[in-house]
C-alpha cells in the first residue's frame, strides 16, 4: 500500500487479521495463567489436589494430579492396619520406574523387592500411620500408580507429568 510520498509495506487487511489473532492469543494466555492459578500446570492450586483410596478407608492417598518433570512432588499415604507394630506397604514397580523417591517419612527400617513392587516396612506405635513420600518425576505424560498395604487393599491413581 502506498501513501503520497511514502513507500511502505503496509497491508491493512492483514493487519486486521493480526489484531484479531492477537485478541484470541491474549485470551488464551489469560486462560493459561488462570489454569496455572487453579493448579492445572502443577505445583499447587485448588484443582491440583487428588485423593484415592479403598472403600473401607484402610488406604487413602493424597497426591498431585499434575506434576512437573524434574520437580519434587509429594504423595501422602494414610494407612490403617488395625493394630500397632510393623506396617508394611508397597509401591508398584511401574510407578517407581517413572519416579525417583527422594525421601520417605517416617524412614522405613527395611525396603525389599517383591514381584512387581517394592515393599517398605515402618515401625509404628499406632494402628494409623501417615507416610509422606517425596519424589522427583522423571518422565512426561500420564503416569499410573498403585500403592497398597501388604495383604490388604490398595489405591490406584494417575498423574500427568508436564515437560
Amino acid at each position: 500500500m502506498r501513501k503520497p510520498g511514502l513507500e511502505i509495506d503496509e497491508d491493512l487487511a492483514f493487519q486486521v487479521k493480526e489484531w484479531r489473532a492477537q485478541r484470541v492469543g491474549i485470551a488464551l494466555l489469560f486462560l493459561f495463567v488462570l489454569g496455572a492459578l487453579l493448579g492445572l500446570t502443577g505445583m499447587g492450586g485448588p484443582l491440583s489436589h487428588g485423593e484415592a483410596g479403598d472403600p473401607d478407608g484402610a488406604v487413602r492417598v493424597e497426591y498431585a494430579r499434575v506434576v512437573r518433570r524434574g520437580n519434587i512432588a509429594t504423595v501422602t499415604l494414610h494407612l490403617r492396619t488395625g493394630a500397632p507394630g510393623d506396617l508394611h506397604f508397597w509401591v508398584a514397580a511401574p510407578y517407581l520406574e517413572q519416579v525417583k523417591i527422594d525421601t520417605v517419612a517416617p524412614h522405613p527400617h527395611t525396603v525389599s523387592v517383591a514381584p512387581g513392587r517394592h515393599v517398605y516396612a515402618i515401625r509404628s506405635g499406632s494402628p494409623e500411620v501417615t507416610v509422606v513420600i517425596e519424589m522427583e518425576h522423571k518422565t512426561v505424560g500420564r503416569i499410573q500408580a498403585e500403592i497398597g498395604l501388604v495383604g490388604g487393599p490398595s489405591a490406584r491413581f494417575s498423574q500427568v507429568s508436564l515437560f
Partner: protein
Amino acid sequence: MDSVLRSVAVYLFVLVVFRITGKRSLSQITTFDFILLLIIGEATQQALLGNDFSFINACVVIGTLMTLEVIFSWLEERSPALGRVMGSLPVVVLENGKLLEDRAKREGVTLSEILAAGRDKHGLERLDQFKYAILERHGGISVVPTEDAR
C-alpha cells in the same frame, strides 16, 4: 536431547507470547518494560538449563537457539506470508498531523509517545509538523516530518 527440546520449547513459547502481545512489547518504552524483559530473561534461564550448568549444555542451548533463528530467517526469506505472520508489518498511526485513532488504540500507541518520537528524532514541536508516524515491525515509532519542518 533434553536441552535441545527445552531450547526449542522456550524459543517457540517466547516467540508466540511476544507476537500476541503486539509490536510494542518488543521495544523498550519505560523502565518498567526494561525490567520486565530482564525478569523474563531470568525466568527462561532455568527452563533452558535445567539442573545442568555445564559448559557443553550452555553450548547446546545457544547452538539450538541460533539454529532456530537461522531456520526461521531462512523460512521468512522464502515465504513473505510466513514473514508477515512471524514479524508483522509496519502500521501508519498518524497522517498529516491527524492521529489514526483506531489503529493507534489497537497497537497501544498513544499520542504522547508519537510526539516524544518526533521530538527525539527530529526536534518537532507540534502535531502539524508530522507528515507520517509509523509503528515499525520492531515496535519503534518512526516519524516523517512535513517539508516545512525539515
